[in-house]
């Protein structure tokens, strides 16, 4: 089954962890998860400056590993990202910001990526905050 995941929970919220666990389980069962779209507070998953304590799960790192092992697309909504202080090098240059902080494995794009993924998916599974 083709799945699209929508994560609007922030990385420190419980549903963020459920999203990652669900995605791993779906991939292990052979489902086709093509894209995870991070929107709302979920956009902060793309912040490379997040540093959870060592005895707490690093959800963003978990997504990065899936990106590497399964070529899973991790797309962060541009409007939600900018509002929450997440930007890539091009955006930082354009907005005259001192640093770019988009985590590796994540890409920033528009809501059209969500709309497109919804059209292709058999199921959309959302993980709200």
């Amino acid at each position, binding site marked *: 089954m083709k799945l699209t995941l929508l994560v609007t929970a922030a990385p420190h919220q419980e549903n963020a962890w459920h999203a990652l666990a669900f995605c791993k389980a779906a991939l292990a069962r052979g489902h086709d998860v093509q894209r995870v779209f991070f929107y709302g507070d979920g956009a902060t998953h793309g912040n490379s400056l997040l540093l959870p304590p060592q005895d707490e799960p690093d959800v963003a790192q978990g997504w990065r590993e899936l990106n590497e092992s399964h070529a899973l697309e991790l797309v962060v909504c541009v409007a939600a990202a900018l509002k929450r202080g997440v930007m890539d090098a091009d955006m930082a240059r354009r907005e005259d910001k001192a640093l770019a902080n988009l985590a590796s494995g994540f890409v920033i794009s*528009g809501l059209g990526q969500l*709309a497109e993924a*919804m059209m292709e998916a058999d*199921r959309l599974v*959302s993980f709200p905050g």
Partner: protein
Amino acid sequence: MKHTLFIQHHAPYGSESPQEQLDALLVAAAFGQKVSVLFQDDGVWQLLPQQEGHALERRTLAAQLQALELYEVNALYADAASLAERGLDQSRLALNVQVLDAAALKKLLGDQDLLLRF
């Protein structure tokens, strides 16, 4: 074509959710999806007329909801129970919505390919 129902269930100015969900649904509609909207739980507060977002230095959500028509999103619904629980009069709402009882709501949800609620 996929039938997608966006469920607005948050009060209009308590969080970013209503605005971000509206943005997502307008893009989905622009991409040619068959989009409808259900106002449920605290989401029915979004339907109050005479909202003045500027008092909170925010955009007025009700005014933006008027744009739904321009995107040909004409299937708008409100949950009768949610309205009743909050003492809202269905004849005095900012949008022309169809008010659904529990049975009609069940059918609406069952008719969708995708549901979005966040």
